């Protein structure tokens, strides 16, 4: 006697590689202001990215992970999130952070080796950048649990890379999200690579979205270079979460157009042709084409936007470079709410050495 249990995941796409609609667009396409704001954020993100890489190359910033190729996804996420929601990032979510109100200067401080880069003034409940892969997924379900416990109609969006979906944290967390019916949306940013490891080495699953099935959750694949597809999917998943209908997993398919970080050299492990092909699918250019084609954007506006973005980035860089490092005593001051007895002698030693080196008394 046999019985069959069936499952599926759908994938969505609205625009072709040139920005031409493949059919009817989702209702989000009528929100012109939102679409234009999205485009502006993508351009700003890319300008920031280019500049930060340049800073790193000239020794003015630390190792930095380029967001090139992720702008559409990050922007759509940032727009879909309510300000009362909580965003749980990984480390390549610059586009979303900017929409959440993290300042460019704060982002630079973080990658420039200064803890104050995570002391965001805006969206103070958002989690900081998470470097240990996939660990943030567990925090996301914890935050969503807090909402459920308190009966708040808020939701969480958690980002993770394709590589991160091999790690227990992701798999355990989506399972809990299903079991506890939590208001959380997991967005897997499948950029085809985890440093040098291609998507196919991570898993023989045809899609990453199908990992949702084992957690009892709906999974969706979406073209991550298609602003309307990502936006519609995010809006629906968040509506579901806000409406108490539970969690979802979205696989947003894109391509990491840059090196893994400024410490990486991607030519070691992937071909120029592959990269060239990926550029043809670039989501920023695709949306730009769409906007041009529909008359919502013109070269003049583009020029103005480019220079506005450049200025914004330059201002941020200036502020970043002008920020004095913290006195080293800060390394002890934020460990606990108050400095414990056991650490006070060490704190004094740090302060003494700092004074001796700089002549400054501020650290005491």
């Amino acid at each position: 006697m046999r019985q069959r249990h069936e499952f599926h995941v759908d994938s969505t796409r609205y625009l072709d590689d040139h920005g031409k609609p493949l059919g009817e667009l989702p209702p989000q396409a009528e929100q012109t202001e939102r679409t234009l704001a999205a485009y502006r954020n993508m351009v700003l993100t890319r300008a920031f990215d280019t500049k930060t890489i340049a800073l790193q190359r000239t020794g003015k910033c630390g190792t930095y992970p380029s967001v090139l190729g992720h702008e559409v996804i990050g922007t759509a996420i940032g727009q879909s999130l309510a300000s009362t929601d909580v965003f749980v990032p990984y480390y390549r979510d610059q586009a979303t952070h900017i929409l959440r109100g993290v300042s460019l200067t704060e982002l630079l401080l973080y990658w420039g080796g200064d803890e104050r880069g995570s002391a965001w003034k805006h969206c103070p409940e958002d989690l900081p950048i998470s470097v240990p892969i996939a660990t943030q997924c567990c925090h996301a379900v914890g935050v969503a649990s807090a909402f459920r416990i308190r009966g708040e109609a808020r939701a969480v969006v958690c980002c993770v890379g394709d590589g991160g979906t091999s790690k227990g944290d992701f798999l355990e967390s989506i399972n809990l999200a299903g079991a506890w019916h939590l208001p959380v949306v997991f967005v897997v940013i499948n950029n085809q690579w985890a440093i040098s490891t291609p998507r196919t080495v991570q898993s023989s699953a045809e899609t990453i979205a199908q990992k949702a099935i084992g957690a009892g959750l709906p999974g969706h694949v979406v073209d991550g270079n298609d602003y309307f597809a990502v936006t519609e999917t995010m809006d629906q998943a968040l509506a579901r979460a806000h409406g108490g209908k539970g969690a979802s997993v979205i696989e947003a398919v894109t391509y990491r157009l840059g090196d893994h970080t400024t410490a990486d050299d991607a030519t070691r492990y992937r071909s120029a042709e592959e990269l060239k092909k990926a550029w043809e699918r670039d989501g920023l250019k695709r949306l730009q084409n769409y906007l041009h084609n529909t008359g919502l954007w013109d070269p003049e506006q583009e020029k103005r936007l480019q220079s506005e973005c450049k200025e914004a980035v330059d201002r941020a860089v200036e502020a970043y470079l002008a920020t004095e490092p913290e006195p080293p005593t800060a390394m002890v001051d934020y460990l606990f709410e108050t400095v414990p007895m056991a650490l006070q002698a060490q704190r004094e030693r740090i302060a003494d050495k700092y004074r001796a080196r700089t002549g400054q008394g501020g650290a005491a």
Partner: protein
Amino acid sequence: MNASAQKAVARSSASEVKDITLVEAVNMALAWEMAHDESVVVLGEDIATNGGVFRATVGLKERFGYKRVMDTPLAENLIAGATIGMAVQGLKPVAEFQFMGFIYAGMEQMVSHAARMRNRTRGRLHCPLVYRAPFGGGIHAPEHHSESTEALFAHVPGLRVVIPSSPQRAYGLLLAAIRNPDPVVFLEPKRIYRAVTQSVTDNGDALPLDTCFTLREGDDVTLISWGASIMETLQAADKLTEQGISAEVIDVATVSPLDRETLLCSVAKTGRAVIVHEACRSGGVGAEIAASIAEAAFLDLQAPVVRVTGYDTIMPYYRNEQAYLPQVDDIVEAVEQVIAL
């Protein structure tokens, strides 16, 4: 809700004085704090319906509801990490690891996130959470159920590691741990979960963290211990009294950050120290204490600081576990040695 659950819960009405065991004191502290602070939640494997495999959380689900008392799927990494997510939201989660031997999957979350959230966000977010785990050997348990690896957590800056050794201290220190705005690893010596009862007032009074407790004053030697070994240490002190040796007994209680002042004051008086712990010797918390005393009390010491500990090997299965655990006679012998010098 069965009868024993009801009894346990019934306990936490105000200012009752009860003769209770250490594990009952844990239950009483949880119940008190949950009743007085609705941001306190508890989670773990088998802690809700079953009340925990050691019954530490019995009755809490019935009293505070499943939303605040959560049975989790079986995944310690997830428990450690989800707890962090709850804590940054202002809840005060108390997560149970069923045995310390199963806490290691949670290490990454503890080391890389719980211990660092406040520091890396410069205070924007912080983690008022407690990770509870029964620990230690001597209860005839299967493999992996007898670990004493407090030193692993004590070496992680940003974590507090707190170990009660009596019902009273379990009650007061757990309350303090829950109220503390930073992460606390709270290790419960399961060998003495039910060893003794003590009269404890259920009035919500916390005890101070980061402080040693001097259990007995003495002049000839300072005995330093924590957790279940406090029992053997006190018994050794009794024996020594019979031999005319006056031992001061200190329960370290918070093994990190360490209250060196209390220890050094005592050694300044006695000139001798013997440290007793169940964990293996090399790199145990005893090493830090011995190193600290030997450095800071160099001129006070009349004998080397000696450690009476488990061996540098894996806790044997139970047929041989007593051969691993430090015994009263080992402590007495060590004291005799340092006194002879």
